[in-house]
C-alpha cells in the first residue's frame, strides 16, 4: 500500500500546532511545508514571521525562521534577501501585522518590487490580542474595540490589500485564495508554489492573500465560522488572481 497523502516534513513530527481548533493559519503552515518539500527548498527557506497568532508555529515548523518586530516583516525580509539573494525568503503575516502597524513597510516593499514572497493571512481581526478591529474587519462585524460592529463613519471601510498593491507598478503577482474547501486549499497550495517560484526566478514581489477564519475571536464554532467565511468574508474579499505578470 502506498502513502498518497503524508504529513509534510515541514512540520515537526511530534509537535501539535499552537493554533485553535479549525484555525486556518494551521492549514496554511502545512501547505507552506508541503510546497517547500516538493520544491526541495526546505534547507534554503527563511521564514520571517509577523507578530500575532501568525507566529504561533515557531516550534511546529522544521526549518529556519526569524520573528520580526510587529509589522516590520517585509523590511526584515528585504534585508535578509538582499544579503543572501539565493535564499528563499518569505514573510508570514496577519492583517494587523501586514495591513495596520506594518502598512508602510508592506506597501514600500511591494513598491520597490522587492524579490520576496508575502503570505498574508486575512482573518478580519487581531487574533492573538483578543479580537480588536483590523483594517480588514467587515462592516458590521463585532470586535472588542467595536462592540456594536464596525461602522464606516467611525472606523472607515475594510481594506483590500491585493487591490491596493495592484495600484503600484512593481508587484509581479497578487492572488487572493481561501482554505474554506479542499478545492480551495489546493488552489492556495498552487498559488504559494507559484509565488515561491517567482522569487527563485528573480521576478520580484509576490503576495498570496489567504482569507481565513478565526473561530475563537469571531465567537463562532468551527462550522459556523466556516459559514461566516463563505457568506460574509468571501463576499467582501472575492477570490482570484489580481495580477499575474508571468
Amino acid at each position, binding site marked *: *500500500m*502506498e*502513502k*498518497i*497523502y*503524508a*504529513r*509534510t516534513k515541514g*512540520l515537526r513530527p511530534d509537535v*501539535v*500546532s499552537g*493554533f*485553535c*481548533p*479549525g*484555525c*486556518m*493559519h*494551521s*492549514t496554511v503552515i*502545512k501547505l507552506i511545508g508541503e510546497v517547500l518539500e516538493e520544491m526541495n527548498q526546505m534547507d534554503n527557506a527563511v521564514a520571517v514571521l509577523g507578530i500575532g497568532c501568525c507566529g504561533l508555529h515557531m516550534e511546529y515548523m522544521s526549518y529556519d525562521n526569524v520573528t520580526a518586530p510587529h509589522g516590520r516583516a517585509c523590511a526584515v525580509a528585504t534585508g535578509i534577501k538582499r544579503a543572501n539573494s539565493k535564499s528563499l525568503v518569505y514573510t508570514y503575516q496577519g492583517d494587523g501585522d501586514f495591513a495596520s502597524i506594518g502598512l508602510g513597510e508592506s506597501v514600500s516593499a511591494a513598491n520597490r518590487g522587492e524579490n520576496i514572497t508575502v503570505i498574508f493571512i486575512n482573518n478580519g481581526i487581531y487574533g492573538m490580542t483578543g479580537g480588536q478591529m483590523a483594517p480588514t474587519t467587515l462592516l458590521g462585524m463585532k470586535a472588542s474595540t467595536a462592540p456594536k460592529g464596525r461602522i464606516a463613519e467611525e472606523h472607515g471601510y475594510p481594506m483590500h490589500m491585493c487591490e491596493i498593491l495592484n495600484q503600484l507598478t512593481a508587484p509581479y503577482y497578487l492572488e487572493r485564495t481561501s*482554505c474554506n*474547501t*479542499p478545492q480551495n*486549499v*489546493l488552489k492556495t497550495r498552487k498559488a504559494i508554489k507559484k509565488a515561491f517560484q517567482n522569487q527563485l526566478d528573480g521576478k520580484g514581489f509576490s503576495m498570496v492573500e489567504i482569507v481565513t477564519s478565526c473561530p475563537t475571536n469571531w465567537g463562532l464554532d*468551527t*462550522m459556523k465560522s*466556516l459559514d461566516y467565511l463563505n457568506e460574509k468574508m468571501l463576499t467582501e474579499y472575492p477570490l482570484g488572481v489580481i495580477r499575474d505578470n508571468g
Partner: protein
Amino acid sequence: MPKVEIRSESCKSCGYCVKFCPKQVLAIGDKVNSKGYEYAAAVKPEACIGCKMCGVVCPDAAIEVYK
C-alpha cells in the same frame, strides 16, 4: 482498499474532514486525546475511495491516506 490513518494526538476535533469527506467515512468519535479533544475516526472505513480530501482540508496534518 484505500485507507485513512488519523494521528489522534494531532486532531483538534474541528470537524472539517467529516464535513468534506464525500463518502461519510469519518465522524468525530467519543474518545478524547491527551489535550481533551474528541478526535475524528473512520466509522465506515470500507467506503473510503482514497480521494485525500480529508487530508487536504485538515488544518493540523492529522490525516494520512493510503491506497
